């Protein structure tokens, strides 16, 4: 039996831990050990972005990160976007703008768009298309995804202005 390590990190604000072999990929730990199946496995070759999660403020493809690399990290997955039964502005906007059809890419799109808006709250259409270019969608042709991110950006800006 290969040597295993206990890895602890914060997942959507909660402390979690898992016992893993060094070769275990983060996406498997999330889905199979921590019962967070929101992040999907699409290509498993770093291309499609369906497994995108947020680790320490970076959008990463969880099929290309070892769980042992995440010890002590802060993780956000699609399950962490909704708060107290209220959808995140991005989730609401994807719903309203029809930013998905089959929905397979959506968890990755949402977590990636979340980080994009954190870094750039007022993105141009080009910024959005460039910023989500690591996430493939085979249904929408991207147009409604771009609209959804634009709509969410406007709503978040309005909310921030109201709070200020």
């Amino acid at each position, binding site marked *: 039996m290969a040597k295993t390590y206990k890895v602890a990190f914060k997942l959507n604000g909660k402390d979690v831990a898992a016992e893993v072999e060094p*070769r275990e990929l983060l996406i498997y730990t999330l889905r199979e050990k921590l019962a967070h199946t929101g992040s999907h496995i699409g290509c498993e070759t770093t291309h499609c972005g369906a497994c995108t999660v947020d680790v320490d403020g970076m*959008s990463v*493809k969880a099929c290309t990160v070892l769980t042992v*690399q995440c010890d002590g990290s802060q993780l956000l997955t699609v399950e962490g976007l909704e708060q107290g039964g209220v959808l995140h502005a991005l989730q609401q906007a994807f719903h309203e703008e029809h930013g998905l059809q089959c929905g397979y890419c959506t968890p990755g799109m949402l977590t990636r768009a979340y980080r994009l808006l954190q870094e750039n709250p007022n993105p141009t259409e080009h910024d959005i298309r460039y910023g989500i*270019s690591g996430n493939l969608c085979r249904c929408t042709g991207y147009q409604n995804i771009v609209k959804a991110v634009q709509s969410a950006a406007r709503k978040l800006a309005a909310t921030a202005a109201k709070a200020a």
Partner: protein
Amino acid sequence: MIPAGFDYHAPRTLADAIKLLGDLGPDARLLAGGHSLLPMMKLRFAEPAHLVDLGKIPELRGIAQVGNEIHIGAMTTEHDLLRSALLAEKVPLLVEGTSWIADPQVRYKGTIGGDISHGDPGNDHPALMLALDASFALKGPRGERVVKADGYFLGLYSTLLEPGEILTQIRIPLPAAGTGWSYQKLKRKTGDFATAATAVLLQMKGNSVAKVGIGLTNLAPTALKARAAEDYLVGKAIDERALTEAARLAMSICDPMQDQRGDAAYKTAMCGEMTRRALAAAHARASKS
């Protein structure tokens, strides 16, 4: 898509990493951003017994001006390069080149040092480093040596880096004020390697070329310095005739592999086109005084 088993080490200092690498011997591989190595391990093209993760060593990250050079820690990510105000001002060629690498998620993890050390001719930093006339600091159990990018890339996945050594820093001489730049990369889609790409750094004096650096990506088993094209251009005006001859000289050293991106003749022709475009774009940006 699960890598073969290995043991994992995460040293906190460079000294510890060098010692570990020496103790573990040839079965150990360095893990930088992991976006070349981990995919290779998942495909079982690589099966190291040990991974030494450089990701927890703060001294290997950062971008700073030191005298007449920009120093970049080898573990600085592509994302960090793109967001650096210092680089945008002083070495915009590096920022433009980096913006063409892979996709956002890969750029959060991928590092400049990993891209250079991997020795993959499809990687973009080697040609950028050749155009910028960069040097690399290599540290090992016997101390540090500094080597030029020109001469560093020996062949497919082969560089001057010796077993037991770690590339710790990239050093770029500050381009003179008014220097023009361009990275022209033809690729089929986001995330793909270049079909052909050319990096140009161009300094003019009046209407003639004072100094030019030209690097080529994915057109041979290593990145290439287009030396004959550089030598030809010095003292010339950038006009149609010069562009054609420089492109011809760049194409004459290409030896690309045929693959799904095209055959050797097509890739070589695209090298000519990327070289023309990069020279013209750099010329448009260069100060002519």
